[in-house]
């Protein structure tokens, strides 16, 4: 610290270390911030069809059974926005067990919420954005299916995590052959 350059170097080095400690402190205290979101998901119906070409890059998609869901979502996520929230990633996933595959999780709808103004979700009679089908060709033997709304808060500093909000059971029926 005996000359100006030494003092400049020492102060700047310590300033960067303190900056690192500050960012770690912010990242670690963010999950402790309380939030009280409201959430509700209602399912109107599930219709399974087959024989329609869904994915131009998947040769099996024409023969596979695809489920089309009709659902309602009501959620108020404004309290999940704090100073360390960059955006909220809301998605709806269907989880089920199939013969041969223990856990399956298919995302059927998602939305990026960038600020508290967009944080009130109100979907009425919505269909799934992405196709829902089994890894096999049909829904034969598919059990324990449920529909879950997840919110994933993406922070500026820190780790992301999935937060399941609302879960309802559903059944995936087999497709009725065209009469």
């Amino acid at each position, binding site marked *: *610290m005996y*000359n*100006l350059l030494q003092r400049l170097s020492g*102060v700047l080095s310590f300033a960067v270390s*303190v*900056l690192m400690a*500050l960012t770690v402190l912010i990242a670690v205290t963010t999950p402790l911030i309380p939030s009280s979101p409201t959430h509700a998901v209602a399912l109107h119906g599930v219709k399974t069809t087959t024989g329609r070409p869904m994915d131009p890059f998947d040769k099996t998609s024409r023969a596979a059974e695809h489920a089309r869901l009709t659902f309602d979502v009501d959620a108020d996520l404004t309290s999940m926005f704090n100073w360390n929230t960059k955006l909220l990633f809301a998605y709806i996933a269907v989880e089920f067990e199939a013969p041969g595959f223990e856990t399956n999780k298919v995302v059927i709808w998602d939305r990026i919420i960038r600020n508290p103004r967009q944080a009130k979700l109100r979907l009425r009679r919505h269909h799934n954005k992405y196709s829902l089908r089994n890894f096999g060709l049909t829904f034969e033997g598919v059990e324990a299916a449920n529909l879950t709304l997840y919110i994933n808060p993406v922070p500026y500093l820190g780790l992301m995590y999935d937060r399941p909000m609302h879960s309802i059971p559903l059944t995936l029926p087999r497709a009725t052959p065209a009469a």
Partner: protein
Amino acid sequence: MDILKNIFAGGRIDFAGQAAASSLSTLLLAAAAAAALAAGLAVQRLDVCFGVYALGVVVALAAVMPPWPMFRRHPPVWLARCPAPQRRATVEDVSD
């Protein structure tokens, strides 16, 4: 170049001043971080937090980098100059 050398390699302060500069800069940076956290949490904005911290770093640099008179209160006391010793021959005359 000499001007730069005079600016950056100069600015000497005495030993008591160096200890004071070191602890003062540590204290100021820690206080800047605490103030930044408080300010950011109050208005709920991350850019305010890091902006306040940057200002705190500038304040710490301004308080410690220039050779203020308070860092030069106790100049080191050098010993008095001794007369230069006589040059003596290192080889002794050994005659047997």
